[in-house]
């Protein structure tokens, strides 16, 4: 658990206790309402988590390395952005992985595209986002994020 998660836990537990002391009924009523919201999401979330396991098995990091290392920068950047959108690997795995590519002399443009779409564009979480916020919201946010991930990547290429 990183320190922010821990901090959040401590903060919430303190707030929760004072909430119970102040008004027990109000607190539990609110929890009942929120768990209604959660109940609708939890099946989807569990599905997503198991789907991620499948994706990681069939698209292992080696495959990602292959696509990031293509010689044509434009093609490899677009492909990297796509690979980043569909995979969801934890950041602490992603950074050492791409760090080793950079050290091996890979171009940073596709790598930045990959890193940015990895977190900002959610292909697997899309159904959930769509259900919670509507198709228009989910589509707009994900498409814009994809586009800007590619733009950021090329700007990084110029700056660095």
């Amino acid at each position, binding site marked *: 658990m990183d320190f*922010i998660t821990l901090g959040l836990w401590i903060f919430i537990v303190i707030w929760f206790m004072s909430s119970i002391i102040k008004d027990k009924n109000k607190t539990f009523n609110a929890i009942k309402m929120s768990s*209604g919201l959660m109940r609708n*999401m939890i*099946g989807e979330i569990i599905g*997503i988590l198991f789907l991620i*396991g499948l994706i990681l098995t069939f698209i292992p990091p080696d495959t990602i390395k292959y696509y990031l290392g293509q010689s044509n920068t434009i093609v490899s950047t677009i492909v990297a952005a796509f690979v980043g959108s569909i995979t*969801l690997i934890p950041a602490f795995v992603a950074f050492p992985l791409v*760090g080793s590519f950079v050290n091996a002399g890979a171009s940073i443009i596709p790598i*930045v595209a990959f890193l940015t779409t990895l977190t900002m564009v959610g292909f697997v979480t899309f159904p959930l986002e769509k259900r919670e916020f509507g198709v228009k919201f989910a589509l707009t946010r994900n498409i814009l994020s994809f586009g800007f991930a590619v733009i950021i990547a090329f700007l990084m290429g110029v700056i*660095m």
Partner: protein
Amino acid sequence: MISIIKKIKNNMFLTLVFIVYVFLIIFIPEKALQSLNNSLYYIKEMLIIMPVILLLTSLIEAWVPKKTIENALGEKSGVKGILFSFLLGSFSAGPIYAAFPVCKTLLKKGANVLNIVIILSAWAVIKVPMLTNESKFLGPKFMAVRWGLTTIAILIIALISSKIVKKEEIPVKESIEKEEAVLNVNNKFCIGCGLCIKVSSKHFIMEDKKVKVNKRILKAREDEGIRYVIDKCPAKAIEYI
């Protein structure tokens, strides 16, 4: 039997993933095992974060007044709201799906689309522990430049999104669609007029000048009377949760 079919229908996606796993276990068991192993990390992450998110959304629901959220993140929050959203997103914990219920609660309490997109995106990309990690493996300059560009990009994305998507287009009460949603009278809003009792006395009772639902009623068993009182309640206090 019917309830099982309903459960499957409500969880189509989960069922689909489950079928793929069953397939793998039969035909390529080692791949199934590997996939399960890969998922384990994410399951653990979820178990660590979701209880906090549940409590957080409940506590916001109970104690933070609508006015406060409206001022901090609503239509007139301006630059202050944008800054606040960036901070909120950056100092959050957990993957992007953990942000969904929190953002939904904030939306319900009056936050605008612009700030919600900022919170969601910042929650996904700009995490303080992640930045230190990035700096360690890719260098501080790489991290700083990418962070700067990403922050600007998020702002532009949020501005464009808020022009395209209107707040009314975001479904706020989607649990109404669910068959297992429970009928409830929100006693914060109920003014005790008794209209619902007059129309449908078998479902509602008066208690301390507020109306309560007298037993658990599922959406699946909704009748004409209930539909009528939900529509006609002057305080709009009757709803499924």
